[in-house]
């Protein structure tokens, strides 16, 4: 065999891959289809298929060709021979097929990712979302949603550009992407179901009237929204999608908690069949770039996810990903593909997802019980039905910072809501919200944490009322000296960070 690239990785043009729909089927065109030329940034337009990549892919599988062009190391140097993964519940998964183990250690030979994984993802995404054929969606394996978001921003927004987002959003997006790139965020008001359609219309109107550039991209977290926990129902999504059609907005659907929808009531968990429909499922125009990740329902340590999007944007995203990390980690892709195949044979993916949903449901229920018993009249919240966050408004506080210092001293670490504001970490005006995650704390810690919070809020409320009537009879829970000594002061959590060496 003269080629180092196995025949099964051959692709005709090096880019187009497993479309969600059979390519030979007629694809109805949407009247509001996206004109990608008007959405791509200057950097995106400069990206073209690298010559070397074209060479590598073009001669892949042609066994008779002596390929001396590519820079792929020879598999004989790779150190790993086999992998065994023990699964909870007793089963184990062994990966020792020489070709598979080689593939795991080699550079990505197909630009869009390891084919067996991509195929699994294609079938799964079809089953979960039934994307409308006119959207022409295709799949790219990614490094998880953080990186995918960065890639999409580079191709659709760019440094100095602008973007719509929920008023409270994933802090990382603000501080680690928007701020360094000088991207102007237009925050849109939310309610218990997430982003509000009227507020979106208003935001677009304001942007047009202001004379500065009009945003063409909406970043949204529709399920178990970070930080508010909101879940957008189908009608809400339809209303927002319609506005995006009218305004020609591309929707970046960041959905890491999609699989973490749960029921804290007595009924069954939703599993895979009972999940809220996505924006992708509505996407007749091909204007939704849906980011899925294995991080929350499987393993964050593998750094793996997938992007479902129109082929024109997929091409740019693929090349950007190649330019950055040369594709996703090979071993992660192989492990995930093998695990999915193993589970599929026994219907176990559904069982795993239900199990995970049940865990988060129990955790949410535990935190809510503590909140119900201690925080009535001191805080307001909506019980979450997805994700890992409880978003709480502190009454008698104009800003969470009023109580953060005391919480820290008591060893209770929460995220001040201002950090998640689109103008964070120090937005104008006060922010009386905190985000509490229920993914890690034990039930004892939740009880301890919430009762401490209650004590602090009661003291604050008494202070505000100028009377001591409302002081709780119990003292602040006792703490270990080690905890007090270890926690940093409030100024280290405020907007001006100290220099942290090595980070």
């Amino acid at each position, binding site marked *: 065999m003269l080629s180092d690239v196995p025949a099964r990785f051959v692709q005709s043009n090096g880019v187009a891959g497993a479309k969600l729909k059979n390519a030979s089927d007629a694809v109805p065109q949407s009247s509001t289809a996206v004109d990608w030329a008007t959405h791509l940034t200057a950097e995106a337009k400069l990206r073209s298929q690298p010559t070397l990549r074209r060479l590598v892919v073009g001669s892949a599988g042609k066994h008779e060709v002596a390929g001396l*062009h590519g820079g792929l190391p020879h598999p004989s*140097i790779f*150190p790993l021979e086999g992998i065994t993964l023990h699964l909870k519940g007793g089963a184990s998964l062994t990966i020792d097929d020489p070709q598979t183990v080689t593939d795991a250690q080699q550079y990505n030979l197909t630009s869009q990712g390891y084919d067996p994984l991509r195929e699994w993802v294609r079938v799964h995404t079809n089953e979960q979302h039934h994307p409308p054929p006119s959207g022409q969606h295709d799949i790219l394996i990614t490094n998880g949603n953080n990186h995918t978001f960065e890639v999409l921003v580079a191709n659709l927004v760019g440094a100095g550009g602008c973007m719509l987002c929920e008023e409270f959003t994933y802090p990382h997006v603000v501080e680690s992407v928007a701020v360094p790139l000088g991207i102007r965020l237009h925050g849109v008001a939310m309610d218990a179901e997430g982003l509000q359609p009227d507020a979106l219309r208003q935001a677009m109107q304001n942007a047009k009237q202001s004379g500065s550039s009009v945003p063409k991209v909406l970043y949204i977290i529709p399920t178990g929204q970070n930080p508010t926990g909101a879940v957008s129902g189908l009608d809400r999504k339809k209303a927002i999608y319609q506005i995006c059609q009218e305004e020609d907005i591309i929707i970046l659907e960041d959905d890491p908690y999609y699989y973490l929808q749960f029921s804290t009531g007595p009924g069954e968990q939703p599993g895979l069949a009972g999940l809220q429909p996505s924006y992708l499922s509505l996407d007749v125009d091909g204007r939704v770039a849906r980011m899925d990740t294995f991080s929350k329902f499987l393993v964050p*340590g593998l750094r793996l996810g997938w992007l479902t999007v129109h082929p024109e944007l997929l091409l740019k995203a693929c090349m950007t990903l190649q330019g950055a990390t040369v594709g996703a980690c090979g071993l992660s892709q192989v492990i995930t593909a093998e695990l999915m195949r193993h589970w599929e044979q026994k219907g176990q993916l559904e069982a795993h997802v239900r199990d995970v949903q049940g865990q*988060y449901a129990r955790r949410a229920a535990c935190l809510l019980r503590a909140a119900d018993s201690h925080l009535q009249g001191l805080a307001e919240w909506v019980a979450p039905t997805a994700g890992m966050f409880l978003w709480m408004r502190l009454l008698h506080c104009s800003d969470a910072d009023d109580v953060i210092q005391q919480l820290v001293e008591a060893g209770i670490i929460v995220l001040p809501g201002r950090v998640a504001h689109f103008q964070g970490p120090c937005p104008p005006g006060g922010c009386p919200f905190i985000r509490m*995650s229920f993914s890690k704390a034990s039930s004892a810690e939740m009880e301890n944490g919430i009762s401490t919070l209650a004590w602090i809020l009661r003291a604050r409320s008494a202070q505000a009322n100028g009377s001591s009537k409302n002081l709780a009879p119990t003292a602040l829970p006792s703490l270990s000296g080690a905890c007090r000594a270890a926690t940093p002061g409030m100024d280290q959590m405020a907007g001006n960070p100290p220099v942290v060496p090595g980070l």
Partner: protein
Amino acid sequence: MSGSAPEANGSCNGAGHAITDIEKYLSTDGRARQSGSLSKLIFKFTGIPDVVGFHGGLPTAEAFPFSGIKFSLVDGEQISLSSDQVKAAQQYNVKGDGYPPLQTWAEEAVQKLHAPPADHAVSITTGSNHALDIVLGLLLDRGDHVLTEEFTYPHMVDSITGPRGYQLWGVSYDNHGIIPEAMDQSLKQAAAEKRPLPKVLYTVPIGQNPASFCIPAQRRQEIYDVCSRHDLLIVEDDPYWAIQFPAHSDGELGVHRLGESFLSMDTDGRVVRLDSFAKMLAPGLRVGWLTAHPELTARFSYAMHGSCLGPNTFMQVVLHQMLMQWGWEGLDRHCKRIQGIYRRLADTFHETAQEELTGLAEWERPEAGMFVWLKFLAGVHDYDDLLNLMLEQKVTAAPGSICHVEGPQPDVGCPWARICFAAVTQDQVKTGVQRLAKVLRKYQAAQQTR
């Protein structure tokens, strides 16, 4: 060239050019980079006892599917992770500069192998491509200049500098790397003409891609001095450092005799060194490490974390355990093994080429890396002249023009090809060279009959 005296202005060894304020070297993006508040909270409170952490969005370990992780190695070694390691392998990074035990290993490796003279810090990376992408983003704004060899790493040109709008400044080189006098002259002229100067020198000093040279110590010092004089940062991208197989050496070099890096002579703190496990172990792991001025490393890890939440922990944990079990002895053994494999392939190429290509092409026997930089004789003006014959004879190589800093230039002509001898078997190397010879002979014959 070697043994030349220090410049008359007395600024040899970069004395007096130590970098004290990294801010002035940063791009707009680089200056704006801070550690995110959420990440800071998570890093701060990880591992602190008696803290009730409601802040992070780290998934619960109870939901992770794996209870055991075992790897078997080609050399017979078995790796079995402890239950703490199994949990860590499945979780997000809890520190911005990588999985702490692996980061500690990398710090020790840098000290052991390079003993950098200036203050430095080490971060684990997601592989050198991404590290390069991030580093250039921290240092350069659109329109800024990167100085590099006239022929350079094509992927960087295609996928990073091109789309980002960084200008490449090509400098002449010979068998030992960039020619310091040419670089110095080029920079002086630009300064005199008040043209913008490059901020960064980018080089692959061992097994350069594509020209395959290795920069010896004396030449390195001269290059370093020019950079120091003109206050350039040096991005030392060294993926083939462990893949050295000099023609004359007693035994394979292993990991301890790999020579002096730019980092090892970095008195100013201006070197950003990119190390990678990709060629030393396997590319599919997507893990490497970066060494630079502490503030630059800090910005790098904020940017890396901001980009993708860091390298995948699964690989970091496995790699760390593997390196612990191997110890330095095992790593040395592994390096010797792969150096032997590459040496045999390089020798096969060179010997077959001597038999078949003498008079038809020029090349140097490679002493490191994966490439041979082959110049076509036989009247070839550009690689493209040979395309049809190569298709007919069923052989491919990478056209040299794709490695030029200005990309393919049809009117100039580029009679070079980059041959990768290391991605194929010994037989494939022989066959490839024989077919190339046939191509050239046929081309030559066709020219003569005109």
